């Protein structure tokens, strides 16, 4: 029995964001922009969607008078990522 893939994580940008955040404790907006190679606007939209789903938390602060955004993954996000990865492996094994 195969579970359907998480629709939220099928999007490559969101998948990359969650993959990075699963490995680290917290991560800056600029690093995510660099890793995902996307625009600031698109990244903001994707982060907002992940936050609304409870997958990540976003922390806003100021550093040297500049706004700073950092993100971290939630327990819900880790569970979703693990399930998604497990499902991907199952689908891949089925094809092989």
């Amino acid at each position, binding site marked *: 029995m195969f579970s359907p893939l998480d629709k939220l994580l099928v999007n490559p940008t969101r*998948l990359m964001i969650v993959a990075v955040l699963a490995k680290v404790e917290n*991560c800056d907006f600029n690093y995510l922009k*660099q890793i995902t190679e996307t625009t600031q606007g698109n990244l903001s939209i994707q982060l907002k969607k992940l936050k609304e789903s409870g997958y990540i938390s976003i922390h806003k602060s100021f550093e040297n008078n500049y706004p700073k955004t950092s993100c971290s993954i939630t327990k819900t996000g880790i569970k979703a990522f693990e399930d998604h990865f497990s499902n991907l492996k199952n689908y*891949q094994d089925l094809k092989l």
Partner: protein
Amino acid sequence: MKTQEQIQLINDTINKTKENLKSSAPNFIFWGALIAILSLIHYGFPDFIQKTRYSALIYWVAIPVIGMVLTVIYNIKTRKQTGYETHIGRALKIIWGVFNVAWILLVVISIFKNQNPVDSILFLLGVMLLITGLLIRFKPISFGGVAVIACSVLLVYNPEVNSLLINGIAAFLGLFLPGLALYYSKSNV
């Protein structure tokens, strides 16, 4: 996206976000060199360092506190440049933060009890190094921790041994050399 492409994307993304523990090597090198030099100067010029009742205390507290501030500034800058903090990086930050507080407490307690704190500080440092080495899976730091613990045991059982010399040797073996090994390490620590 196909399933294979998604798995590849996850692998590539995770591989790009490396542990980057090499950036902590300058901390070990700096503290190893600083403590070894302070110990040797004190050993070589005891009359000058112990000129007044509190001069040795100021020497051993003021300079390391300045060192701590410099280390904190360096680590904050490194964190900003990297753009992320890993789970191991956070664990190490907590471990060494606790060590700094414990080190200050040990010095304060030793003043009130009029005792030499070197053996206690070395034992604590050795344990911290051993934990760090095991956590990041880097043997030179683990061995350094064992060497520092051995130095503290030597001081406890041989009180006639000069604690300044042992302190300098422990800093060199436990911090400086493993720090260099980490800095020049080719493996992806």
